[in-house]
């Protein structure tokens, strides 16, 4: 304990060391807490916002004032109880023949257990047609359109008899123009169903509604100005036969309209609409994990090999050092790449290969240190006192090279971090895990170099984390190995 205190009192004089320590502390916090601040999975959660959109705070920058956040003007209320019906405006052609109730039955794949149940009493409806409209009006205050919209619906029709039914989803813009996003004619009873295509502005079927076809951007066409917009579901009954007594029932569930904005979160989104912030936070975890574990393994290997080589001498020394030399002459990065390509792209393989290629330099240092320590008087004394080789190695030699071990750990971590980043950048990273190198790989792959909100953070993080370990290594070197540094 007192040794730790003594070390700290020296260490805190060292500015470089303190800055490095502070940075690492920050990154560890970020790796532990950062991922919790975002619920989005960095790899699997696609389309959490518009694709390739800048962060929300870009609004304050010139040229980006018109950014639209993610909005959900028509929420999917779930219809769990009858109160939730009041969220909607319901109009019908004849008040008497329609009843609107809450049903506990809902589409299983949708949200909530309930649905709206629309019952049409065929006897009282009188004329052969009837009409109902479930609508919601919202105001749109943004001068630019959202990136994308998505809508959903599920329905079930029962007791149609001879009645035919047309149901449709419609968006009405501020000028009163109607856009029918989806419609279907129903002539017989159905089970729970949903639209046959995704009611999504990215869907070809939705685009084909517009004159430009596949080149149309429905979000841009519909949201063409500020004002009140209306989203409605409409069911038109036709050919109602009052003679056949009974009711026709239509269940409606999961009605919603989601608008994906042109900005998202702290750091925007990537090509597939994934949260860049979440990728950065999970990347911190990956980088620290890979860096620390590989450094630990490679330093351990180097220490053991160096101790053995130094102590045993003879052929053990010769063989291990020649093996180290051999690994040193094959260039590191190509060897790393090919080994990962052969073994498979998993994070454990990456750690394994990085550490198996990173021990050689340190084992040489340890060996030479052991060779020089072996000749010292205190070792001879220990030997004379009858200490075994193992005893001497662990009790006398090891404490004397611990300083080197710490320094080597600190300098091996940034090497491992940059190696992992380079691997991932070249497309040989673990595809199931997000890392900073992987982020840079993705943005090059999708030609997004201009997206600075996506380019800057990962590279800066790699550099800062690497620098902080280098700084700690330098300061440890100054403190622990004063003999090695004459200045």
């Amino acid at each position: 304990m007192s040794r730790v205190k003594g070390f700290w009192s020296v260490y805190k004089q060292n500015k470089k060391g303190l800055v490095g320590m502070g940075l690492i502390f920050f990154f560890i916090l970020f790796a532990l807490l950062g991922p919790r601040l975002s619920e989005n999975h960095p790899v699997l959660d696609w389309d959490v916002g518009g694709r390739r959109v800048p962060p929300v705070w870009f609004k304050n920058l010139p040229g980006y004032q018109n950014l639209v956040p993610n909005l959900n003007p028509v929420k999917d209320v779930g219809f769990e109880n009858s109160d939730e019906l009041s969220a909607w405006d319901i109009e019908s052609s004849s008040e008497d023949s329609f009843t609107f109730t809450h049903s506990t039955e809902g589409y299983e794949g949708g949200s909530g257990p309930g649905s709206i149940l629309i019952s049409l009493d065929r006897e009282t409806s009188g004329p052969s047609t009837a009409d109902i409209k479930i609508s919601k009006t919202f105001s749109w205050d943004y001068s630019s359109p959202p990136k994308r919209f998505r809508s959903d619906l599920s329905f079930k029709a029962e007791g149609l008899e001879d009645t035919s039914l047309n149901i449709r989803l419609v968006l009405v813009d501020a000028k009163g123009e109607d856009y029918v996003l989806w419609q279907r004619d129903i002539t017989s009873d159905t089970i729970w169903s949903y639209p046959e295509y995704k009611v999504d502005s990215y869907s070809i079927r939705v685009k084909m509604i517009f004159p430009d076809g596949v080149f149309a951007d429905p979000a841009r066409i519909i949201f063409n100005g500020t004002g009140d917009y209306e989203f409605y579901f409409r069911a038109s009954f036709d050919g109602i036969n009052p003679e056949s007594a009974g009711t026709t029932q239509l269940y409606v569930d999961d009605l919603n309209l989601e608008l994906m904005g042109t900005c998202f979160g702290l750091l925007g989104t990537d090509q597939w609409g994934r949260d860049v912030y979440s990728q950065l936070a999970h990347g911190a975890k990956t980088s620290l994990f890979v860096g620390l574990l590989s450094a630990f393994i490679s330093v351990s290997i180097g220490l053991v090999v160096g101790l053995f080589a130094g102590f045993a001498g003879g052929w053990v020394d010769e063989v291990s050092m020649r093996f180290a030399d051999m690994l040193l002459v094959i260039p590191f990065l190509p060897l790393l790449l090919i080994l990962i390509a052969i073994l498979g792209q998993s994070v454990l393989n990456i750690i394994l290969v990085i550490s198996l290629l990173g021990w050689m330099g340190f084992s040489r240092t340890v060996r030479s240190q052991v060779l020089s320590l072996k000749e010292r008087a205190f070792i001879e004394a220990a030997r004379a006192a009858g200490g075994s080789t193992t005893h001497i190695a662990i009790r006398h030699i090891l404490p004397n090279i611990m300083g080197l071990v710490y320094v080597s750990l600190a300098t091996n971590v940034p090497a491992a971090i940059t190696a992992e980043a380079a691997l991932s950048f070249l497309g040989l990273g673990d595809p199931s895990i997000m890392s900073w190198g992987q982020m840079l790989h993705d943005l090059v792959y999708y030609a997004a170099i201009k997206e600075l909100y996506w380019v800057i953070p990962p590279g800066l993080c790699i550099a800062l984390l690497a620098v902080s370990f280098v700084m700690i290594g330098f300061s440890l070197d100054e403190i622990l190995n004063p003999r090695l540094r004459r200045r």
Partner: protein
Amino acid sequence: MSLKRYILKRILYSLVLLFFALTLNFVIFRMAPGNPIQVVASGMRLEPEMVERLIELWGLQEPLHIQFIRYLKSTLTWDFGYSYNSLEPVSREIGERLGNTLLLMGVSLFFAIIFGTVFGIYAAYKRGSLFDLTSVTISLFSYALPTFWMGLLLIYVGGYVFGQFPLAGTMSRPPPIDPILKVFDKAWHLFLPSLTLFLFQYGFWLLMMRSTLLEALHEDYITTARAKGVPERDVLFKHAFRNAMLPLVTNVALQIPGLLNGAILTETVFSWRGLGLYTWSAIQFTDYPVLQALFYIFALVTIVCNLIVDIVYGYIDPRIQF
């Protein structure tokens, strides 16, 4: 006599090392999964005769030891067989790219040494000053910056913000016919990649020069020179710098293998048609003949560089024991 023996011993050891590296190189690729025929034939239907012809072309029907001997022979004759990907002779493909890599590495190394040395000397001379502090911090940071990220930023700045530099490639397409324009075109394409690789090394040279010079400035002969009244500039350049030349020379040789790693990343980012990009694409296609040839060349370069360092030390440093 003893120096000769020392050099001979180093050369012999280098050869042994090269042999071991070659063996490792051979073993790694035999360990690799994936029949080369599958690699080539993926996506196209081959007649059995065609497959046999390909097996013969790569000598895959022979037992492993014969293949090994043939591989060793290929390192001497520089006939590395045919690429799995392009089916072109590997040595020709390497020959086409070698010049580009040497150009990129040479230009960036040259400027990195010049700038690193000059600023390193000045930082050592002004030790503890603001200049010293900032240049050391910047070097540390540029040293740690991921090369590929630096490349991306330079593409952004040079290619989009200023819009003056090409985003990728080695030459315009089609290349200019006039030889003078051709040189300019190449230089224009070379600028950003070599700047990237320059920044990759610059920090190292500055820090190295600064620390060797600081060490030299503390030696007794400097004190003597100052006491004699030698002008400060002469002390710096004629006395201290002269003695810091040796690590400079040896570090050039020691840095080249590391520079290869940087070149692979830089060439990939800029699609610079050199050996680094070739390595990367060979890994994408699991093009083993190409990789084997490239590994051999890289190992050879490293071993030769180390040998040069050993020999230079043997000549210059009296402390080396033969």
